[in-house]
């Protein structure tokens, strides 16, 4: 019987003090009755291996004890769908808020160290931010889980219990591509903000744009960017500002219909910028007499040619896109005329 006592002791370790003794007493009686029955069948007391086998079939102590305890999941099946829904809906918003906050911080605050290091730090720091967000949501829902098992808890306010079938998205048109998910739209906006940030940092950190060109500029002697680039920079900021507005609007699927028109306007602005680049005659100027003028003239000429070729390509592309967008409207008008 020493084995039985040891078995009960092991079970008792996992039981709450309030009910431990009562449960163990009941278990002892039931197991003793089972042992007695078995001994009666065999017409002799059970040997230790037989008793061991009987207890083994009764179950591991921790498993047996667990069955006497209330369900111990942190978030149970009733609350879990709401928990998952909240995480899925809030995750992109958290990322968006984080990106905006980091962008403002990088632009507004004077940088300690270089900008690239600041951007890298922001990207790395999103991991603990997201972990804190996940832990906070989990704690809130664990509290809800604890509360909802109490009498009188109203689950009607949980996100998963409130929905309206009439607000479901319209059926997807098989001929059109699947609309972007909210997470993708948020990611688009986040990356665009990072891109704007990069462009805004260029005047203070020219190496961001020069990069590998630095080698070529050194070949030219002591060359510098022509003043016209400043005008192009303003045009670029206008384009980025317009794209920012379109991406913010894109967060709401209501504006999906206007998106092709907005895309076309964006491309038109891009063509305008390219046209400006193509119209520039001078891209680099001599910053000192030591510059090789022949090479500089050659570079300016071929850059002009490159931008003019690029202008032709993007213009044709813009016309094709405009035709694709306007074709259905023109077709309807021609049908109505006939």
């Amino acid at each position, binding site marked *: 019987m020493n084995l039985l006592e040891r078995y009960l002791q092991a079970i008792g370790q996992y039981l709450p003090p309030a009910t431990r003794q009562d*449960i163990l*007493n*009941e*278990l002892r*009686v*039931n197991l*003793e*009755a*089972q042992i007695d*029955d078995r001994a009666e069948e065999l017409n002799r007391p059970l040997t230790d291996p037989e008793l061991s086998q009987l207890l083994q079939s*009764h*179950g591991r102590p921790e*498993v*047996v004890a667990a*069955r*006497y305890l209330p369900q111990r999941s942190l978030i149970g099946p009733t609350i879990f769908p709401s928990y998952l829904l909240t995480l899925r809906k809030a995750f992109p918003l958290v990322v968006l808020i984080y990106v905006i906050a980091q962008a403002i911080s990088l632009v507004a605050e004077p940088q300690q160290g270089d900008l690239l290091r600041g951007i890298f730090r922001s990207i790395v720091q999103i991991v603990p931010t997201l972990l804190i967000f996940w832990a906070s949501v989990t704690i809130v829902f664990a509290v809800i889980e604890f509360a909802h098992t109490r009498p009188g808890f109203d689950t009607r306010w949980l996100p998963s219990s409130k929905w309206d079938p009439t607000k479901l998205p319209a059926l997807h048109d098989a001929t059109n591509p699947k609309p972007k998910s909210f997470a993708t739209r948020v990611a688009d906006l986040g990356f665009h903000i990072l891109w704007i940030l990069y462009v805004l940092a260029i005047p203070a950190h020219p190496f961001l744009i020069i990069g590998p060109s630095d080698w070529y500029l050194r070949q030219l002697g002591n060359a510098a960017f022509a003043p016209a680039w400043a005008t192009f920079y303003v045009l670029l900021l206008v384009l980025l500002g317009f794209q920012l507005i379109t991406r913010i609007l894109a967060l709401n699927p209501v504006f999906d219909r206007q998106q092709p028109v907005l895309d076309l306007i964006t491309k038109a602005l891009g063509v305008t910028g390219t046209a400006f680049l193509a119209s520039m005659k001078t891209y680099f100027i001599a910053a000192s007499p030591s510059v090789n003028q022949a090479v500089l003239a050659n570079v300016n000429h071929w850059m002009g040619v490159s931008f003019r070729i690029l202008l032709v390509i993007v213009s044709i592309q813009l016309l094709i896109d405009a035709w694709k967008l306007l074709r259905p409207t023109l077709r309807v008008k021609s049908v109505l005329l006939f």
Partner: protein
Amino acid sequence: MDTTSNTPSEPQIFDSLRLELRRGCLIVAALAQLRSEHYGYTLRKALADQGLAIEESTLYPLLRRLETQGLLTSQWREEDKRNKRFYKLSAQGETILTHLLAEWNSINDSLHKILKTPTEA
């Protein structure tokens, strides 16, 4: 891609579905059996004798849960020189059992009707 590698075998699927099917029935059976007083071990034996074997580790906690819900009453009493906890169906348990049996009969009837209906090709 091989989709069968993670699929449970036929006996595994059967065992899992059988367990689900039996779970509710065992509660009804235990309540019905406790119209007469039993302690844990004799209840288990009585159910097993009538073809409804149930593991001790499942039955004993179940009895305490049903008691917490007010469907059973219990009392410690000495029998054969041992203190035992005897369970019996409470008045509330009697009412719930009646409803559960009606539900079970209704499911049983529906299932029989479905099984008798010829399947469409």
